[in-house]
């Protein structure tokens, strides 16, 4: 048991260093980018990116606020990855979760935790349909989940525009194109703060980061400690072998997408039940879902790693906001995408790290073997 633990630690260490290396390279690239735009302010810009998130409790609150839904979409993508599925539909599932949560909270006047369960349900439904198509008809989940992003977007927009009770103007606000402010519609549906908002001095602060971290830990336990996780990973790593071992691969594909979808759905719920966000009816897919992909990649799909990678991405986003007006905040998107690119390379870097470690081990093993060879040779000579 101790040995196994030590081993996983080592592998974890390798992924972690690989991610850190790609982040450092990404930052250096970012610095050069800033230099090329405005060399006098470049250092200031970099400082903002690196340190703005920690400057005040209020900024920290903003980081945590954004990190929570990001963590959920990251978990969503990572969980499906573990089963060998690429859930690119986290955006749609996230939106479905948001819509279910808002309907439950505003129209049905339910408390926040009921709305969260509804969010998980919405995401689960939207994730399980591509899962079902994959399991039953072997339709590529990438294609179906992309289509379900758009289907989800327009279905939600259509539904919301035709549900007057959910819109802001029903509660006296001026905008008919967005959902109601929860403080006006149903205060109970706002995620509680437990005094954290006062502690940080920010309305953005609530317990959502605690909830998502707990979910991440649960996901970690499911994946690495249970037979269910054992089956899921086996299906992802070698579908044929899992069929051979009598594992119901179809059921597992379906369940994996369902769980993955519910994670994204909870992400949507968490963001829109914070009391500070209102969903605006627009014809644009939500970025939060897609940002789950780099979060998962940076964490090598490890749920615990996802906690940190989500915090990091959110942290530099806040930093990006803080470098305005000297720099356009879009620069941070470029830096993030560079890191995303490099995080894909992080697999490669990880490979290099583990290979070096392996070869050291082989040396000792071979030295023993060579000794045996010599003994054999002597015997042969006799």
């Amino acid at each position, binding site marked *: 048991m101790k040995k*196994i633990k030590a081993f996983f630690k080592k592998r974890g260490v390798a992924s972690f260093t690989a991610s850190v290396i790609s982040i450092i390279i990404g930052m250096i690239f970012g610095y050069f980018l800033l230099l090329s735009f405005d060399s006098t302010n470049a250092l200031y810009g970099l400082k903002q990116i690196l340190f703005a998130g920690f400057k005040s409790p209020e900024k920290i609150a903003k980081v945590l606020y954004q990190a929570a839904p990001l963590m959920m979409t990251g978990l969503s993508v990572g969980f499906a990855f573990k089963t060998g599925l690429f859930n690119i539909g986290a955006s749609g599932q996230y939106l479905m979760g948001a819509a279910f949560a808002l309907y439950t909270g505003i129209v049905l006047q339910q408390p926040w935790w009921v709305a969260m369960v509804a969010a998980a349900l919405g995401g689960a439904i939207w994730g399980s349909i591509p899962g079902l198509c994959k399991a039953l008809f072997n339709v590529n989940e990438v294609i179906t989940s992309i289509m379900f992003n758009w289907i989800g977007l327009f279905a939600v927009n259509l539904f919301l525009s035709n549900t007057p009770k959910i819109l802001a103007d029903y509660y006296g606000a001026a905008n008919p194109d967005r959902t109601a402010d929860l403080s006006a519609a149903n205060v109970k549906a706002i995620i509680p703060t437990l005094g954290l908002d006062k502690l940080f001095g920010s309305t953005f602060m609530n317990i959502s980061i605690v909830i998502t971290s707990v979910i991440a830990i649960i996901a970690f336990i499911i994946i690495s400690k249970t037979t*269910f996780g*054992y089956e899921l990973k086996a299906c992802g790593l*070698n579908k044929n072998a899992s069929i051979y071992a009598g594992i119901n691969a179809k059921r597992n594909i379906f369940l994996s997408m369902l769980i993955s979808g519910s994670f994204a759905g909870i992400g949507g719920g968490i963001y829109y039940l914070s009391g500070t966000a209102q969903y605006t009816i627009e014809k644009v897919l939500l970025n939060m879902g897609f940002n789950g992909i780099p979060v998962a990649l940076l964490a090598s799909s490890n749920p615990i790693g996802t906690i940190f990678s989500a915090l990091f991405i959110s942290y530099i986003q806040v930093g990006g906001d803080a470098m305005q007006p000297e720099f356009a905040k879009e620069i941070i998107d470029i830096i993030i995408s560079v890191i995303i690119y490099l995080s894909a390379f992080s697999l490669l870097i990880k490979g290099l790290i583990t290979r070096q470690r392996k070869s050291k*081990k*082989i040396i000792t093993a071979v030295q023993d073997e*060579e000794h045996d060879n010599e003994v054999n040779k002597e015997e042969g000579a006799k």
Partner: protein
Amino acid sequence: MEDYVIEMLNITKTFPGIKANDDITLRLKKGEIHALLGENGAGKSTLMSVLFGLYQPDSGTIKKNGNIVKISNPNDANDLNIGMVHQHFKLVEIFSVLDNIILGVEPNKLGFLTKKEARKKVVDLSEKYSLSVEPDALIEDISVGMQQRVEILKMLYRDNEILIFDEPTAVLTPQEIKELMSIMRGLAAEGKSILFITHKLNEIMEVADRCTVLRKGKFVGTVEVSLTTKEELSKMMVGRQINFKVEKENVALGKTVLKVENVTVASRLHKNNAVKGISFEVKEGEIVCLAGIEGNGQSEFVYALTGIEKISSGKITLCGTDITKASIRERSKSGISHIPEDRQKFGLVLDYSLAANLELQRYWEPLFQKGGFIKFKAVNDYAERLIKLYDIRSGQGPETIARSMSGGNQQKAILAREIDKNPQLLVAIQPTRGLDVGAIENIHSHIVKQRDSGKAVLLVSLELDEVMNVSDRILVMYEGKIVGEFNPQNTTVEEIGLYMAGAGDKSKNTQKGGEAG
């Protein structure tokens, strides 16, 4: 003074931590067939990769016709007229034979293909060396044997003089092997020099002039094949005496374990049935062997037997219980163990640890889990026990990632897992495919031990030696049917070979026809 067309002198190649080739010298005469013999991991592939320019040696020189040459990449090797038939063919499935042969050296005028001359050259070559191919057939439609001939023609088309064959017989039927041997002899007679990588001693004895033996990266010796024996070669290769005869105890046959009645299985490849209504029984204490050439329905039958594939009609009974409709898991529980044909595709989750692989068929048992949570200590202890019991060698014990283990040890792990389940029926397809003599000996002894302890074994094999040595009863499959049943004591390899190739079936049919008439 003898002419050597290729000399590899004192080649040493070290990988981080491993001396794959240690001071190896190999001299190839013009017009000879030179076998390169060694167990898996002995350094054969590394040596050939050095010759082919894929690796640079740390020290040592390569000479061609007495002149030192430097081979930095496969193009250099090609320029020196060195060609290679890889174990897994490098052909484009949806291209025609001719297109595959000219691929990379397409004859053209101003960028437009001029296939006419190419076709003539290919046809001439195929006649000269009696390599019968159909130039316009698609690769995916032709037999494995013909695909190999296409690979050989590819080398000849490029005017290669030194031909490397990497385990060419692994995929062939006995008849095709014979044919290949005569082709190789013909090539050598025409002055081509052949390097023949193998670990099959019979083939060396039959076709090679000389043989160089490697063991664990070191040069053991080069011998004249006519002056040596199979036993001596195997001793050089493994470093100890190998027992070719499988020792079996006398065991009385017990109850029927497996009863197969009229089983038909549809094919995934074509519209016909892959298995066409076969019936047989396997009793306690016997090894029944399904012999046959690859692609005659054995694999499909085993998939159907183990539940991976559905059967379209018929009935399968295990120890008196009808399992025709049972799921894979139910069959496994009721006492079928399955050593699959493709150990990496089906048998193992390569990125799982050895311990996780060893519990693959049993992870759900209370022994290994409680309330859905894996008992890591139990899994680890179990793995430790199997590793000891079955001598599975791995770098880091139970934590070793299966991918990093050698083929022989991967197979031992599967064997350990399947036998330790204590099955009523052990189904093994090609359990020794690609393994070296030492590993084969080990695996055979475990299979026989299973039989000696009164269990039933169904063995599917393409290797006639294995069929003859291990089994108690031989059923020959041809085109989805069982065409003959033999007792290995009263039959010959030739007879079984004939039945495997379908000739037996025809002769029997005409016989029957004669009787009826």
